């Protein structure tokens, strides 16, 4: 497997909410990194914000990884929110209908307010 060019940082801004900052590329090679980041989130968190502020690139395999992450979160009764998407990736979320299950916000602050 090729080394992933993804960096994922998990932060806990408040009780019950986690932020996963996604930097670099999200492709098929990001699978392990995404799973690892999700494992680092408190299983009792009620909401997870995916921050795409530093996303460089995401292909269709990367979108597939987000779907599997979403399913894991839904099983744990956790909401998934997203922020920091470019206009282009907002369109991709609409095209792939991810926007119907992941609420999209302009900023991290807006996402955190919605998650509260």
């Amino acid at each position, binding site marked *: *497997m*090729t080394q992933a060019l993804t960096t994922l940082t998990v932060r806990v801004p408040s009780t019950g909410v986690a932020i996963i900052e996604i930097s670099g590329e999200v492709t*098929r090679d990001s699978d392990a990194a995404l799973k690892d980041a999700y494992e680092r989130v408190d299983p009792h968190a009620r909401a997870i914000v995916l921050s*795409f*502020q530093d*996303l460089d*690139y*995401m*292909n*269709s*395999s990367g*979108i*597939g990884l987000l*779907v*599997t992450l*979403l*399913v894991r979160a*839904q*099983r744990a009764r956790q909401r998934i929110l997203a922020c*920091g*998407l*470019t*206009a*282009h*990736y*907002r*369109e*991709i979320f*609409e*095209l*792939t*209908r*991810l926007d*119907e*299950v992941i609420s999209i916000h*302009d*900023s991290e602050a807006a996402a955190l307010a919605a998650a509260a």
Partner: protein
Amino acid sequence: MNTQPDERAAGPWAAPVDRLAMTDDHINVSGRRPTAPMNGFGRMWQKTYRTALGAVTPQQAITVLKEHFPELWPAGNRFFAPLAGIAPGEVAALDLTMPGGLKLSTGVLVLYADDESFTLMTPEGHMFAGWITFSAFAEDGQTWAQAQVLMRASDPLYELGMTFGGHRQEDRHWVHTLTSLAAQFGVDGEVTVETVCVDRRRQWGRARNIWHNAGIRSGLHMAGAPVRLVRGRR
């Protein structure tokens, strides 16, 4: 909102589309919404088919797969390649042979396509809601071709069909396609199949997807053919 330029990403993706449009009269395609795995009814599956291709580049592998895609399918199933080929935003019609001889007509949207991969997204009425991504990559000193399906059966009838033979039929389909691709490079490829149930739950709120079921609609269309023929002669 992040407004950084994103030129590399813009090319391979289809432009936003709410409903598919085709210029010919292939049934069950025009007017249908593209569907994601979340929009289906049945259990969510991730199925990965993989074969070694030897000493070709991933780009060569995907070029051949795109150009010969219809020929690589098993007999009895047809992929009507778009005039522009497998390119982002193009829509292709499909005719698939079902048990009992029924011809199921549906289509796919080319969601994403670059030099090393492409992804097809299914419309409402297709057997499954989801995506299938074909990719090629170098690993362990050779190039591999992979097809990965992420899907839920679209409605309860399809879920029943997938459970009782549909998954096996789909496995045979993609094993045949990858074996045929390997043969294009003179390789006698063995295809591995990995199946993972991503979500065991069924989404009963999506049971109404059966309204769009392309199998039922194709059957009704076939049954109505004599009537259309008589009307056409008047």
